[in-house]
């Protein structure tokens, strides 16, 4: 079988009435790559991400994710991706075990398989003691690690992370990135949005969206040298400044 790119977008467009939220964006993400998807508030990131996750149909253009066309096979796309955001994660009033059994069931995994993988994940995260704790009682940093593991439970090829590290301390934030590196090292493709510009540096490649289009796409190193900036923050400021963020 021919190796397909993890994500391939081709003039992907979404309009809401006369407003063009995502305007003919094209890019490819390689398997095992950590791809940073940056942009100012309102630049069109969320709309693009929802299309790539099979949650929103494109107005025109196309995209394939894990080899499946997002418009024709949205359900196939959903089976092959993991998704984690700060807002949508675990059910607070269920225990860790109950959360995993529930989500695993949704993805059609067998109970035995779910518990086996959960046990393995908790061991690696050093959280075995939390198995029967209600999620609402756990510290935010643990919840984020668990949400990540949950999104990886059905062993997706690609994982979408929407601002995964908000609100935690600098050490917890970096420990979370250790998980990302580890997953990428095992061949999982990572698609991540963040407002922390130091995190942009951790990505293999970064795209910066401005007013619905991808204004720049390259490795952090090449972007810094192209815009003669010392940090990715400076690159971002240069590109996104002066745009109206509504």
């Amino acid at each position, binding site marked *: 079988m021919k190796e397909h790119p993890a994500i391939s977008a081709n003039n992907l467009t979404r309009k809401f009435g006369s407003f063009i939220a995502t305007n003919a964006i094209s890019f490819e993400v390689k398997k095992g790559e950590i791809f940073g998807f940056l942009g100012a*508030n309102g630049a069109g990131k969320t709309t693009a991400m929802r299309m790539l996750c099979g949650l929103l149909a494109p107005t025109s253009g196309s995209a394939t994710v894990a080899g499946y066309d997002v418009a024709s096979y949205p359900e196939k796309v959903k089976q092959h991706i993991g998704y984690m955001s700060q807002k949508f994660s675990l059910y607070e009033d269920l225990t860790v075990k109950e959360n995993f059994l529930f989500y695993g069931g949704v993805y059609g995994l067998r109970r035995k398989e779910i518990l086996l993988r959960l046990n393995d994940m908790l061991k690696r995260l050093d959280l075995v003691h939390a198995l029967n704790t209600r999620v609402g009682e756990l510290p935010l940093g643990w919840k984020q690690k668990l949400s990540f593991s949950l999104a990886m439970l059905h062993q997706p090829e690609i994982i979408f992370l929407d601002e995964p590290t908000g609100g935690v301390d600098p050490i917890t934030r970096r420990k979370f990135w250790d998980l990302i590196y580890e997953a990428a090292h095992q061949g999982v493709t990572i698609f991540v949005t963040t407002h922390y510009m130091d995190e942009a540096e951790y990505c293999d490649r970064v795209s910066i969206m401005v007013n619905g289009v991808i204004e720049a796409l390259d490795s952090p190193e090449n972007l810094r040298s192209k815009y003669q900036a010392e*940090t990715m923050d400076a690159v971002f*400021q240069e590109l996104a400044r002066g745009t109206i963020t509504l």
Partner: protein
Amino acid sequence: MRNIGKSYKEVIALNDISFDVADGELFGLIGPDGAGKTTLFRILCTLIVPDQGEARVRGLDVVEDFRSIRKSIGYMPGRFSLYQDLTVQENLEFFATIFGTTIEQNYHLVRDIYTQLEPFKQRLAGDLSGGMKQKLALCCALIHKPEVLFLDEPTTGVDAVSRKEFWQMLKRLKKDGLAILVSTPYMDEAALCDRIALMQNGRILDINTPQKISEEFVGVLYAVKSSRVYDLLIALRAHPLVLSCYAFGEYLHVTLAKSEDSKELESHLQNQGFSDLKIHLVTPGIENVFMQLLQQTDEK
């Protein structure tokens, strides 16, 4: 504030907090979710009562004199708290009216910020972007001419460009003599404050100027880089001379006890096959110090 304490059932939200903020000072509370920042804001804004200690705002007691305090402070809560189904202009008019003033009377206070919002003044607040919502919330907190401004995580979830603009506004307000207490999870914003308190689990770990805090770093800090980032991280953490190693932007930041150790580390890594290795000494910043303090509290 003197020895402020507050608990919710068995959870200690604030533990023996004492500090002062001067007129015209921009004071930052830096810490993650759960550090106690919001509880502290609620006490100072007279919305909840502390279990222990006492706090004064402009000389007035937060428990006894809560009515007078409420007139002279501006408070921007962490959660967006304006009326989503009112327009930009209606929101600002509403806040001016309940404080017995008008937009015209205090327009000079919000002019710099409000001019950016004016093209959209007929838009519903709920339809604004994150950055614009924060600007409107700041205008609403300023319109009654407060003497002290309380801003609880005003830039969380806001993009890097809007964050920078927001802090430029705070600098201007400070020049007018306003005392500002602001909380943030972003370490780059900490450096923009006159003084900061680093908070974790209801306690203050450190309180000083950003410059002084940066100087408290123990050991020497090196930035290390290779194209094989993940392998490098594993190799560094396994090395006995490495006290800590974390990703830090483009580089990995490695703490060593003394600078002589760096030579040994460098040759060790080259022997491990990291041929494109770059290593150099760096000046620690607030984030490095905060991480070191967090690590120490974890070990205790």
